[in-house]
């Protein structure tokens, strides 16, 4: 089966799924109070758009900030952990353990210290996103083949040259993978903070819509946020491939 045929089947299946969903609501298999039909969700979209736009900017602005912090802390920390053998062996179990602890546990504390505003969501995004970056970058830096460095040194390369021409291309893939994965974590961190202790943003809006039983609006918000985050991730993946070609 060719790529086009696969795509045709994918589109068809999704369309059939939506039609079946619509039909299930119309014949009364699903209660529209809880699960609105796709047509109802579509009708809710325009009225939601005006309310959602500033909130989306808010949510994704906070995501960008938290993501930047996570990258600025995580990449150097990962490089350091990956390149110093002793440090890696001593500290890595703690990093992995902290990665494994559900961040939701400390989120209430962050909200208590930083309030319900911007900084809680930004910090939450950073806390969620920093660990995958550190772990992946450290793993990548550790796996750099030492003979590459030896060869470069024996050929008279300076430290700066080794960094730019040998180490950077060698660790770049894992840095990029870490940064790509971290984006979803950052969005998740912001949304979760907004749901738990927000007064703005999409997470807060969705939580309120759920409490108010505004199912069509809630489904529309869910669709908007997921479409946006999928496109952000796809864009990063595209960027990744471009950089991969450069390498």
């Amino acid at each position: 089966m060719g790529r086009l045929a696969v795509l045709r089947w994918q589109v068809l299946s999704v369309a059939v799924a939506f039609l079946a969903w619509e039909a299930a609501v119309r014949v009364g298999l699903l209660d529209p109070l809880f699960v609105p039909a796709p047509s109802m969700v579509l009708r809710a979209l325009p009225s939601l758009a005006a309310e959602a736009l500033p909130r989306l900017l808010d949510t994704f602005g906070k995501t960008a900030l938290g993501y930047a912090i996570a990258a600025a802390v995580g990449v150097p920390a990962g490089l350091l952990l990956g390149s110093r053998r002793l440090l890696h062996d001593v500290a890595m179990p703690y990093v992995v353990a902290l990665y494994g602890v559900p961040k939701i546990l400390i989120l209430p504390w962050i909200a208590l210290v930083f309030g319900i505003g911007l900084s809680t969501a930004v910090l939450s995004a950073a806390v969620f996103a920093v660990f995958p970056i550190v772990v992946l970058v450290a793993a990548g830096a550790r796996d750099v083949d030492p003979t590459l460095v030896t060869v470069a040194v024996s050929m008279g390369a300076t430290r700066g040259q080794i960094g730019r021409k040998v180490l950077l291309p060698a660790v770049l893939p894992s840095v990029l993978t870490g940064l790509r994965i971290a984006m979803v974590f950052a969005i998740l961190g912001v949304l979760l903070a907004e749901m738990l202790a927000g007064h703005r943003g999409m997470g807060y809006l969705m939580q309120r819509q759920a409490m108010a039983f505004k199912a069509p609006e809630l489904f529309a918000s869910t669709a908007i946020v997921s479409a946006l985050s999928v496109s952000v991730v796809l864009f990063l993946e595209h960027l990744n491939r471009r950089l991969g070609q450069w390498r």
Partner: protein
Amino acid sequence: MKLWLGRAVVLVVALLAWEAVARNLDPILYVGPSRLPAALGRVMSVRDLPPLGSHLWLTLGEVVAAFLLAVASGLWVGFVLGLQKTLGRIYEPLLAVLYAVPSVIWYPSLMLFFGLGPASKIAFGFLLGFLPVTLSVLAGIRQVPESLITVAVSMGAGPGAVFRKVMLPAMAGTLAGGLRTGLALSVVGVLVGEVLGARAGLGYVLTYAYGLLMTAEYAALVVIVAVAVLTVDALGALVEARVRRWAD
């Protein structure tokens, strides 16, 4: 040996630093480790809360239910999509897209549908655990060398024997890793659900203590839950290592 000493030193230094910082700051916001044991005792005996044990059991039950559902449907979907190559080519990319969606956006809808009781937590834990299990089955099946299957079939092995002797050993490691990730995510899903809105369970007790500004009790609970989660994951890692050794 020296390594363990180094790790212990890091832990002690971290605890001391935490204590030193917490002492000089607002005791309501910052709880040093020295206050945790007493707080733990108080958590156990708070009159306003039902006994911690019953919340613990509820959370554990939700996790088990969510994980079992995730494993059952993840294995099923994974094997269907992995063995029917055409179906796999069509639907695996659709599943993988879900990885690019921050999972927590599903929770408000689930809460609306299932209410504040355990059902919404189980549903969310299931949703989070399902994806890694399914994708690990798919990845595992790809690792099975086609030639081995051909050889086994040509030597007269039935489907059951092929599955047990050829496929299972080749994919066991990946599958075990996926199950472990699935369990960790089911735990996260249940806890997130309980913190965001519940009337019982560990997450509820946590937000209850936090809501009353009983921060020392809250911190003690965080430590307990974190240790429990890490213990479960360590057991999972042990099982995974066992399986990988068996498969090799």
